[in-house]
């Protein structure tokens, strides 16, 4: 019985459909998050590959957070917020731009593709731009393929969460 379960799960993983990237979006509370909201209200469709994390300001998104997302298995990270002039905290967006320069250099130095990270300034009114940026980014990352830090790549001997769940409560077909 157990063997059968394992075989079926193996088959499932083998016949994996095409690669669907997981993208983390840091969106600021005042511009980009409402933009994502407005895109929904206006029924603009964009791929469901993004996981949006709302932050108060994009200036708060330290380069460390972006790298942490990559370590944890994100295929790409988008940091978006207000335009320089619109920033709710007046200097937050500028600070973010400064930090992003550092981040770009570090990502390049680490040998990751620089297309995996992106910074965009999207105001609350620019919801078509938000949908467009997400679409572009998903397409770009599909071309690049899965991240070399894909979940489990760093700790191969460690069990994945899904494997543990399978052991504790195996899914019966």
């Amino acid at each position, binding site marked *: 019985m157990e063997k059968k379960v394992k075989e079926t799960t193996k088959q499932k993983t083998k016949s994996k459909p095409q690669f669907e990237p997981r993208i983390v979006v840091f969106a600021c509370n005042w511009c980009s998050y409402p933009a994502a909201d407005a895109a929904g209200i206006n029924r603009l469709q964009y791929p469901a590959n993004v996981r949006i994390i709302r932050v108060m300001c994009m200036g708060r998104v*330290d*380069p*460390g*957070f972006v*790298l*942490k997302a*990559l*370590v944890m298995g994100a295929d790409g990270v988008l940091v978006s917020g207000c335009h320089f002039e619109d920033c709710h905290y007046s200097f937050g967006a500028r600070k973010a731009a400064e930090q992003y320069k*550092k981040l770009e*250099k*570090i990502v*390049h*130095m*680490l*040998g*990751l593709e620089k297309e995996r990270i992106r910074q965009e300034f999207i105001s609350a009114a620019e919801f078509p731009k938000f949908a467009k940026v997400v679409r572009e980014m998903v397409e770009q990352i599909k071309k690049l393929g899965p991240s*070399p*830090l894909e979940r489990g*790549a*760093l*700790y191969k001997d*460690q069990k994945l969460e899904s494997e543990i769940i399978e052991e504790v409560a195996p899914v019966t077909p």
Partner: protein
Amino acid sequence: MQYDVKLIQETNAYSCIECGKCTGACPVARYSSTFSPRQILTGSIHNSHPEAFRKADLWSCLTCKRCDEVCPSDIKYIDFIHLIRQFQGIENREGTCSHGGILESISKIMMAPNLKQQRLDGLNGNLQISQNSEYMYFMGCLPYFEVLFEDINVEAMKIARNTIKILNYFDIKPQVLSDEKCCGHDSYWNGDIQTFHKLGLANIDQIKKAKVKKIITSCPECYRTLKVDYPKNFGRQEFEVFHISEFLSEIIADKKPVLKSESQKVTFQDPCRLGRHMNIYEQPRETLRSISGVDLVEMGHHHKRSICCGVSGWMNCSQVSKQIQANRLGEAKATGADILVTACVKCQIHFNCALNDQNLGKEMPFQVKDLTEVVGESLT
């Protein structure tokens, strides 16, 4: 790793006589109202469910080894801290990583086997590197520090360039690995032993492939890790490890080169990993004295009693760290020195960070420089 009494016994922790000397000597306990090395030790060995593990203070320890020096029972306190940080059931598992945890993430990303780093871009100019020398220069995380800390006026790659310049001056063209990993020092001391193992094995593999006999480091943390922790964890290694100050003091005594600089007063900060961990006190001082024009003066606390720069392993940087730094910089100011020389890039970063503080920066009339920088400038 589970809580293991036997491993704790190895560190001698049970022979604690609760004299409190460690707390008296600890640079953190001097400014923090809650941190106490003695409390952490007694709390974690006398209770069946260790009380000390619940506190975030566990991550405030600098592992600077000041307490080991004064302990009458000969407890290996830093090994003890290293051990209990690994135990499961610690509620504040992560501590607070400064800089958004970026340096931790960088070392984790380096574990990925199929990534090729682009780290040698900063080594331009007429520096000579070869592919088949028996010497290797282990650069460490300097390229990353260069990018991260450029806004507090730290030019980390200057250390790498000066080290290679010095080696070239003595007709050594060292190998520099283009895909060298982090040595794993921070993960080791923060209790993330899995990351340390992966990074260490990757490094040893590369070093073996490069057929190197002597490794020179400019960072005391890399020095300690390569020299002590790698053999301890991965068996005896074929390569020898030297810190640049060790190498310099030997070769200067041997070849007697002419080192000249403008007349300046300098004072030397003993990095904790180089001094108390590895017992290298005199070599950097000899090197500085051999430069004509340099007048070396000592701070209030020096050699074994020297004070750490305030943060270790990028953990729990706080007001306490600032106060330790301000105190140390005050000691340096009292000597009347023009330059505060350190031998560790992290000391340089932390002191520069404190000097970047507007009020404190105005008071301090000196610069912070690395040992290699001072020697590199004096080469004729």
